[in-house]
């Protein structure tokens, strides 16, 4: 026993334990700094650790198949939850952007037509006929001031006209509906006409001005807008651009095929002109 106590190893152990105890107590008085021993060792080892971490990153993927399945599953579950929450936020964000865009359009229209009054509405139902969008159902009705015969627009573009107005919903006939006749004019030549959709052209996404003279100045690429004649649609609402000119029946007239500016399949929100 005395040999054990007197051996050099015992003296070294006592010395080492004393140093460790002192080194461990110092941080309590140094308030948050690392012990001198840790700091000294850290100076030597941190470059090695940096190199080792760089090397380990290169081979980490090799070892990943041996990782605990339950540990990986927990990570996957947590990430899926986070993705779900982010998706919900993304939807809110997109809706906010769309809302802001609608308000910006409304503001522009109001600035241009100070006497116009609008009722914003969302499309809650779509009716197709022969592949064309011929009617919408809106989520606003007579309680919101909507009446039959009111024009429906999106920005400066004509969408259609209110055909029926219930208390809380209304039906809109679009420019592709054969029952809708729009008094239009070509903005460059002021040539007037009536735009009506035929089933064949509506299916392709066009409306048309028929019965044009063979000498008409209307040509492909020209802009067609409402003329204001007839009192239903105010003047200068954009109907579309002339996609092509084609001969009418028996080649006695020409037909201007009009491509609307809006994509009716993706339309979600519109404005009803309640007062002009």
């Amino acid at each position, binding site marked *: 026993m005395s040999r054990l106590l007197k051996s050099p190893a015992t003296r070294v152990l006592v010395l080492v*334990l004393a140093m*460790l105890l002192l080194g461990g107590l110092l941080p309590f008085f140094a308030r948050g700094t690392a012990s001198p021993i840790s700091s000294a060792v850290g100076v030597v080892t941190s470059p090695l650790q940096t190199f*080792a971490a760089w090397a380990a990153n290169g081979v980490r993927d090799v070892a990943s198949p041996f990782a605990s399945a339950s540990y990986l599953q927990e990570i996957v579950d947590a990430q899926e939850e986070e993705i779900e929450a982010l998706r919900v936020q993304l939807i809110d964000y997109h809706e906010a952007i769309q809302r802001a865009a609608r308000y910006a359009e409304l503001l522009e229209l109001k600035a241009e037509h100070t006497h116009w009054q609008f009722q914003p509405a969302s499309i809650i139902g779509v009716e197709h006929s022969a592949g064309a969008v011929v009617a919408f159902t809106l989520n606003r009705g007579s309680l919101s001031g909507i009446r039959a015969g009111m024009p429906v627009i999106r920005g400066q573009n004509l969408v259609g006209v209110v055909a029926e107005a219930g208390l809380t919903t209304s039906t809109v006939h679009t420019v592709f509906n054969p029952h809708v006749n729009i008094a239009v004019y070509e903005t460059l030549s002021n040539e007037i006409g009536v735009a009506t959709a035929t089933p064949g052209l509506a299916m392709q996404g066009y409306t048309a001005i028929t019965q044009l003279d063979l000498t008409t100045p209307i040509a492909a690429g020209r802009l067609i807008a409402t003329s204001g004649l007839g009192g239903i649609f105010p003047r200068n609402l954009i109907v579309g651009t002339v996609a092509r000119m084609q001969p009418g029946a028996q080649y006695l007239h020409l037909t201007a095929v009009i491509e609307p500016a809006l994509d009716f399949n993706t339309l979600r929100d519109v404005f009803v002109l309640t007062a002009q």
Partner: protein
Amino acid sequence: MKTTPDKRNRILRRIALGALMLLTAMAQFVPWLPVVYGARAFPLLVLIAAIACYDQPASAVIYGALAGVLWDISAPYGTYHAVFLAIAAFCSAMGVRYLFNQNKVTKVLVPLCITTVYVLLRWSLDTLAMPGITFAQNTTMLLRESLPSLGYTLLLAPLMFTLVSLIVRRTSRRQQRVLAD
């Protein structure tokens, strides 16, 4: 000033064992050794056991303390590992030198004892540090993490013992060759 061959060997041995200790610490902390179904390896424990079996007790204590200090840099328990490894190295080295001879049995028992004591102490500290832990969770931690870690660590013992004995023999052999010349 000329160094004697004996001194040169000792310096070489210290450097080689120090480098091995640093490499082992890197393998443990980076970590190069993968976590296998919750089981972690603690190669520093078996390295210190090997050094305690082959080297002088005084230097084994110093190596144990240094290895523990390296471990404590990334561990949450102050100087726990340094103290533990210093005492474990002392007890193992003194036991091998004065109580029983170094043979195959001691080479199994020494790392087994050090690793078992460490794993159980660590498990106790970890569970004590978690308030509200139930007995079932306690037992699950022991069976799923602590005991598999013990087995995983002991798998590295042959490698560590081989490396340390190689270093010690090479430096001893050089001394014998020089003396023969």
